[in-house]
């Protein structure tokens, strides 16, 4: 979807992609601009179509246009949304071509993940929205989420604790171990075995899991933010998601072997042997032999 040719394949591109392309092409000649114009028009048409579709989709948001039909929390959320998010996501979260996608149908889980981890409101256009200090309180985040939920439905984080259901210590340990196996098979390819994260192509990356809290981990699996795949409930059951969360906690908790050097594996180990071990020993040689 990142083809360099602005003219071709436009019909198959979602609005955000098409418009990102426009940003890159403004400096180019008039013909290009005309072509881009076409792309934009198609994009806008698509966005409109998306909106219209969303309007008729099941669990539909037709009512959303009417503030009176929103729950009190949803109304609070709409107020917050209108002041903070419409610049990119458009009124009624229909999306703005080139700035932000439509949020109709992304669900409360996605909003809560994006806003509570500080990714939204996004500060600037970049390869990947980054975790920042959250702008909104927990309650405001929930209101925003509620608003988007009422607009178009979508996945929600289940209420209640994310902890494993109780059991004997043996059962708990077995659940964590299952979570570990699931983690290594489903998540480690991007987030690395130790959860320290890893690079993806073109400046994108899977982040360190250290700062994520339980609900964010759950929401990340449920909604698949940006380049992360969605792990819907038929891929990983809620039970398995909880096991994975429990395992991620053990990753954060313990370092039986001493300081983990950022948990980056052989790269930092190699640096350590030169910067610490070798350097210390070369100073020792200077000390015991002297520079004759």
């Amino acid at each position, binding site marked *: 979807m990142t083809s360099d040719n602005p003219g071709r394949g436009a019909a198959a591109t979602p609005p955000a992609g098409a418009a990102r392309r426009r940003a890159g092409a403004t400096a180019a000649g008039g013909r290009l601009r005309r072509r881009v114009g076409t792309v934009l028009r198609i994009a806008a048409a698509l966005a409109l179509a998306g909106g219209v579709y969303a309007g008729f989709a099941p669990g539909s948001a037709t009512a959303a246009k009417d503030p009176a039909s929103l729950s009190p929390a949803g109304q609070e959320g709409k107020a917050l949304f209108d002041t903070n998010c419409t610049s990119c996501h458009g009124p009624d979260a229909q999306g703005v071509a080139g700035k932000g996608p439509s949020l109709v149908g992304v669900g409360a889980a996605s909003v809560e993940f994006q806003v509570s981890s500080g990714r939204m409101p996004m500060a600037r256009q970049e390869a990947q929205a980054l975790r920042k200090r959250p702008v909104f309180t927990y309650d405001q985040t929930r209101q925003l989420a509620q608003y988007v939920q009422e607009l178009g439905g979508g996945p929600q984080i289940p209420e209640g604790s994310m902890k494993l259901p109780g059991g004997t210590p043996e059962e708990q340990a077995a659940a964590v171990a299952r979570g570990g196996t699931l983690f290594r098979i489903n998540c480690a390819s991007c987030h690395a075995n130790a959860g320290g994260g890893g*690079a993806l192509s073109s400046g994108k990356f899977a982040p360190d899991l250290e700062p994520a809290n339980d609900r964010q981990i759950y929401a990340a699996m449920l909604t698949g933010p940006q380049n992360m795949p969605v792990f819907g409930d038929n891929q990983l059951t809620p039970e398995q998601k909880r096991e994975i969360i429990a395992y991620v906690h053990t990753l954060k908790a313990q370092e039986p072997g001493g300081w983990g050097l950022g948990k980056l*594996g052989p*790269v930092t180990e190699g640096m350590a042997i030169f910067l610490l*071990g070798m350097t210390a020993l070369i100073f*020792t040689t200077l000390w015991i032999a002297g520079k004759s």
Partner: protein
Amino acid sequence: MKKRARIDVKALPGTAANAADERLQVARPLRAVFNKVFPDHWSFLLGEIALFSFIVLLLTGVFLTLYFDPSMSHVTYNGSYLPLRGVHMTRAYETTLHISFDVRGGLIMRQMHHWAALLFMASIVIHMFRIFFTGAFRKPRELNWVIGVTLFIVGFLAGFTGYSLPDDGLSGTGLRIAHAIMLSIPVIGSWTANSLFSGEFPGPGAILPRAYIAHVLLIPGILLALISVHLGLVFKQKHTQWPGPGRTNTNVVGERMFPRYVIKQGGFFAIVFGVIALMGGLLTINPIWLFGPYEAAAVSAASQPDWYVMFLDGSTRLMPPWEIRAFGHTLPPLFWPTVVLPGVMFTLAMAYPFIEARRNRDTAIHNLLQRPRDVPERTALGAMAVAFYLVLTISGGNDPLAENFDISLNAMTWAGRIGLLIVPPIAYWAAYRICLGLQQHDREVLAHGVETGIIRRLPNGQFVEVHQPLAAPDAHGHTELEYTGWVVPKKMNRVGALAPAIKGFFYPVEEPAPPALPQAERRELESSGTR
């Protein structure tokens, strides 16, 4: 009856030594050994780090063998590391977890063993740099250079087999890659891979028990033999030394083996051991419990080999996907960066002493070292090789680097590809110019004297810096000192103007100012042997 003689404690060592000598006749050879002279310079101790970390490797390794079982049979983990309870794994992985969590002192032994392995390879490489850049590999020591390169290669194999043994996620990934590399060799590839792994990998082959025997018996045996020959040759051919007052191509100036040299070496061993123990105790290395048992489907991000293998990983990452098909065979792109490239690199390294001698038509025997600046061409070539190796190694770790420094991984790969072509020539050029510059400065000081930092204003208003000539100057204020390729004093307190402000590492040593010209600091001793 005579009274039994009282034991004279003072005479005891003498009588004991005498008794030993009468039976073993060791006094004469031992005296020669004890009196053997070793030159003293910090850079001559780098090889010792490798030797001492090898000893630590043997000691900790023996401990690990007591508990490790290289079996690939399947078990269910039931040890004390809870997050893996009930997971199916091989016995090899289970016993490694057992060492880490249930054997007293097992984890620190494992970590010391691994840190010592990294240190072993690191010190071999640093030691090689010293040998290379000072020309210590020249005749008569070419053979020892070749042995040194071989030690690196065998050490590499030791490290790789060791890394493969625990059968965790990382080691399995490593073995998988090794398997693919073998398969990429034309004609004999699949045969080699099949016979080494005895079947497909991953699969119920025999690779772990084989790697184990190689790791604990064959490779240490070869290393031990090579190290003995290496040191034996140093002993026989005598150590090289820096040029300097009183030092010639036919003598050795330094300290006697006994007692000072031996004491220093003993102390140094203790320090190397201490550094390894500290690292083993404080810094996690290879936390296999996080990697889980090896499963072909689970490959973690940031899967890297240990640093000395990383250059191969890097060359593979940089290699464009060019596949060659000819004569009904496919030559996968993997073949070039992982078989051909290291082959060429190691062959060139081994052949270098002979290449250089041939180029310079040099058949003389060299026991004096050269300062890197005095042989700009070699230094520049070395810098070029180091740069090449560094670009490859950094590219081998490019995904964690990209992630942590917020660089695009694609940009890193392209930077590596371009860097591999342009950084080495730049390193060559820069090193060459730096060498010439340093030489030039030496010559200036020899001709004009040391810069004193004192600025004098002449009657005509001109400012000049006062120089302290190193010998009586002629009418023009120039000194006719020969360029000898050895340290030229460049600071006033090196020529005795000021007593050194603080000397000594831990507490100041008060000493009278040194004599006006640098002289051999220690007693000059002729080596007991004759040349």
